């Protein structure tokens, strides 16, 4: 369990790096909301964008923010601290309704996924293109372990 979101963010970043590689942005701004992390992965000609919103407690606020990230992401996740697992999972239908992924995170067990969202194109080409343009050329490679978060 984390005492602050900053602490959660530091641990989550370590986990992202270890599990998926360096293919991510932290707190990318200039889009519809500021996701805590945006992971990208190139598969053949296509680049998949996955956004994460981390929260200690307020799952509802996190879901609202994560829905906005669908403007530029193929997949979005709300990642809750372990202690808020029950409150969020009781409302899993809302996450399903809006196709927002729900997971918890602990440094020891990594991501535990409660709902894996369907892969969908982003709502806005303009917004997703902003991210694609920001990806460094040499970073355009496949992230490891994408199967953990993408069906």
């Amino acid at each position, binding site marked *: 369990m984390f005492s602050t979101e900053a602490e959660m963010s530091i641990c989550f970043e370590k986990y992202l790096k270890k599990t998926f590689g360096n293919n991510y942005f932290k707190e990318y701004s200039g889009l*519809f909301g500021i996701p805590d992390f945006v992971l990208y992965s190139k598969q053949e000609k296509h680049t998949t964008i996955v956004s994460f919103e981390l929260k200690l407690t307020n799952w509802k606020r996190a*879901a*609202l923010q994560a*829905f*906005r990230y*669908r*403007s530029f992401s193929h997949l979005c996740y709300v990642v809750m601290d372990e202690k808020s697992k029950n409150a969020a999972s009781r409302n899993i239908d*809302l996450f399903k*309704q*809006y196709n*927002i992924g729900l997971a918890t995170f602990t440094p020891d067990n990594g991501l535990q996924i409660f709902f894996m969202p369907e892969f969908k*194109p982003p*709502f*806005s*080409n303009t*917004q997703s293109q902003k991210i694609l343009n920001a990806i460094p050329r040499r970073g355009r490679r496949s992230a490891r372990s994408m199967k953990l978060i993408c069906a």
Partner: protein
Amino acid sequence: MKVYHQLGFRYNWNIESFMQQVGDGLIFSPINMDAEVLFQKVDALKEPSFLDPQLYLLNEAKGDLDTYPFFPGNLIPDFETTDLDGYSNILAEKCINYQLKNNFKYLVVPTRYYDDNPSTYFQQCTNYFVRPFFKNLGDRSINKSTLLSVIVKRIMLIDTEKRNEVLNWITGHRQANGVYLIFENDFKTKQIKDFDYLLNVLKFIKVLKVNGLEVHLGYTNTEAFLYSIAMPDSISIGSYENLRSFGIKRFQDLEKGPVRSPNARLYSSKLLQWVDYQYIDAMKDLIPHYESYFDDSEYKPLMFKPDFKWHFAKSEPYKHYFFVFDKQMKSLPVAQIERIEFVRMKMEESIEIFREIQNVIYLDENSDGSHLPTWLNVIKSFQKSLI
């Protein structure tokens, strides 16, 4: 019921709309328009309009305010409240003269703003503004319609004693034909969702109407649609948010720090809401008939083009709003009973549309319809008070 443009920054958008027959008049804003520039404006713009003298902070020279002959600092340098004792008659005369020279529809009596009104507030307003103003008009036998400007703070609506005090003060000035009423808005959300506040606004307007006064509401946003059931004589439309919600910051000469730009929004008369444009991309994807939620206007085709660059400082969304909201207000039935029923029905329709949208789109509190159930309850309670 009339619709006035509340002018401010980028007032040309309002003037251009008004020249296309949108709205019934303009409320001129001295901080945004040089006195001479206003004087040079054609009669067709000024005759159906009025001036907000904006002496709220007395001697704060924000923008172009000090180009006006009635600006206190132009009477004596470093004008202070105590100087009103000796200069209120001159100030009234200059304020009247400037308004007469421009031949506005109404002569507006200025008022002052305090964060916390002193106990002598209304006495001060009477002594320094209202009495000198009407004495001057009387001495010169000027017979033109007059409006008292009044800023109504939230406490004046919620607290019965304070509400009665302000109502007594307004209705006590029988020389005035009406009021230019400004409800201070310190709410955190973009739509007002406070039941007591809204109901008391309606009752407040009703009392003034019963007393035979014209009621002109400044700085209104979408809630003007709700306020219409209390039968005010006019409401206002404005472009930027600070022209649709009164806060004193607009008149303070503050040092400009970094300001976060608001997201661009699009008004829909069918939703009674300004929707963050970024949700429109989601609607496009998830709701086949999404365009039907948004009113037609000459600006709509451009705004719905995929390459339209949305930004809060672009004119199209505001001109669209002026056109749509003016039309919406003009569609209101004239008789109060029918109007209440009409407004209630429109709100129920909006709630129904929001239900469809929110099945697939998770809207935030500033784009959703969460204000509407409260507004419906306000209507029900107000209806009871009419029986």
